[in-house]
């Protein structure tokens, strides 16, 4: 089968690989119909996630058709078209039973802090991902959710990660009616977080990035204010000023380790890897939220350390929340939002290309070429 193949930092290709096999009675094999390149795939692509092995297939956003099931699979059958949540969850452990499907304890042998994620290094379990014609999907009784009749595959594939992660960013922030919400990062997740902040009753939503085309997109898609930090002397002062010098009630970090905007963070975090990525957005978030406010983190960082103003967290009495999205828990509500037209996930898609052109897809997304927001690969 054709599959994406990681060869080293900023080097990927499409090659023929062996078909995946059933390894556990609750496994299923899925024929991939749509798969995306995610912003967090860029951390792997850039070689920033430890234990990313040459030969791995990335891809944690995919939907497909079930073509084979293990002996204990009862909830789905061959021929079903399914949304596959990006996290692999058993549904039975102490964490899954609390709805923390992104923190399953029975799917990742190689690390205890992070649950398992398809195609996201051995630190996240060592599973091949969905940027392939076929993928092995463990715990098929738990994760895969049947795509409702009439739902567009392009909407469905964004329900695997982008929509739940953006929604959970807003949910974790505990937004109260009328809150001012600032989102750092106008990538797909940030745009969706800004859109979902309104669902929780936000009174004002501001998104901040450095790419004008993304800001323009966010302003139209998420109905929010959009500002370019490159045109500010200091984004923290800008946010203070625009909130009557109080700070935002809620700030969402939807950037993570690839953040630009601070030379010292960029050099130590992205170039020299002395930090677990550049923490510029998180730094700004802590300093621009109001006293007693909430910082919600969905931007991905590496497993080591980051330089952030932790003293201000104490002095300002902040609550910091973060997690990998619990996709399975959120899917029923999000499917409703898509079906009744409240959310329009496929509106984020700007590029569609065949899986064979995966190297171009990564470069296009990474270098923000051709006004790229979201790329879908079609096997």
């Amino acid at each position, binding site marked *: 089968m054709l599959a994406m193949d990681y*060869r080293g930092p900023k080097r990927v290709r499409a090659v023929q690989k062996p078909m995946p096999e059933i390894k556990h009675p609750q496994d299923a094999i899925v024929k991939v119909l749509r798969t995306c390149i995610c912003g967090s795939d860029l951390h792997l692509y850039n070689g920033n996630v430890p234990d990313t092995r040459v030969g791995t297939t990335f891809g944690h956003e995919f939907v497909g058709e079930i073509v084979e099931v293990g002996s204990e699979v009862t909830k789905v059958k061959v021929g079903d078209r399914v949304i596959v949540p990006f996290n692999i969850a058993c549904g039975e452990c102490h964490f899954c039973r609390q709805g923390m499907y992104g923190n399953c304890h*029975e799917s990742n*042998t190689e690390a205890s802090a992070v649950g398992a994620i398809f195609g996201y290094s051995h630190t996240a379990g060592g599973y091949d991902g969905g940027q392939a014609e076929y993928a092995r999907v463990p715990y098929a009784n738990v994760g895969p959710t049947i795509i409702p009749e009439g739902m567009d595959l392009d909407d469905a594939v964004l329900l695997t990660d982008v929509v739940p992660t953006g929604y959970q960013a807003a949910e974790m922030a505990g*937004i109260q009616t009328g809150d001012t919400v600032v989102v750092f990062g106008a990538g797909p997740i940030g745009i969706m977080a800004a859109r979902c902040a*309104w*669902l929780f009753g936000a009174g004002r939503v501001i998104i901040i990035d450095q790419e004008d085309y993304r800001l323009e997109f966010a302003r139209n898609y998420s109905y929010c204010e959009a500002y370019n930090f490159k045109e500010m002397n200091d984004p923290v002062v800008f946010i203070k000023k625009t909130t009557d010098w109080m700070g935002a009630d809620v700030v969402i970090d939807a950037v993570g380790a690839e953040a630009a905007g601070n030379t010292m963070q960029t050099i130590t975090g992205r170039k020299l890897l002395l930090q677990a990525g550049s923490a510029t957005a998180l730094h700004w978030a802590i300093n621009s939220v109001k006293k007693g406010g909430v910082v919600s983190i969905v931007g991905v960082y590496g497993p080591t350390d980051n330089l952030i103003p932790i003293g201000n967290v104490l002095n300002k009495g902040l609550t910091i929340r973060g997690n990998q999205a619990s996709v399975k828990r959120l899917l029923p509500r999000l499917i409703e939002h898509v079906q009744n037209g409240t959310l329009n996930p496929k509106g984020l898609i700007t590029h569609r290309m065949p899986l064979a052109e995966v190297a171009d897809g990564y470069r296009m997304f990474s270098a923000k070429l051709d006004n790229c927001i979201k790329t879908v690969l079609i096997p």
Partner: protein
Amino acid sequence: MENNVINTPIDPKQIPGWGVDADPKNDPTYPMRARMNVSQDPDSKHRPASLQSDNTEKLQSVERPNISAVYGTTVPPSGLSGMIRRAAFNYSENRYRHWLPLVLADRVNVVEGIIEDLAHGKVPNIFAEKGYPVEMKHNRTAFLTKMGIIGAVTAGAVVWLSSGNKKKKEVRRAARPRY
């Protein structure tokens, strides 16, 4: 401060879906509202009934008591990078001795990948693997400038290093006593 993006006043109530998921009790939020400590969970050690079992080598975090019920089997550790990875897993995720060797192993693995390609008679098309054709197409000027700078810096470094070596050799020769 100036911005290219024009922002117009927004009436939240005109936005589709505004407030449909608003909940005054949404604080503290998930997962704290469903929080359960181990003593409240009568089955906190529960595991799936079937455990995956095969001969694939897997590395186990020392912060876990066991192998998870399912696990990935892609790209088992091998070669020099595999040796480094195995050594890294002697230490917990709390230690740099775990993560820094893994980063090193990843870099070693890249070289192993090129050697493996060559051993199979395949010369990797690094230009295509890096997606340069699409960058050439959409951002030609910046791409050529970047390549020009990299080329110039590389050429400069080569020239500088060569001339430096020559001088050093001359100095050594000059310093050598003659009898």
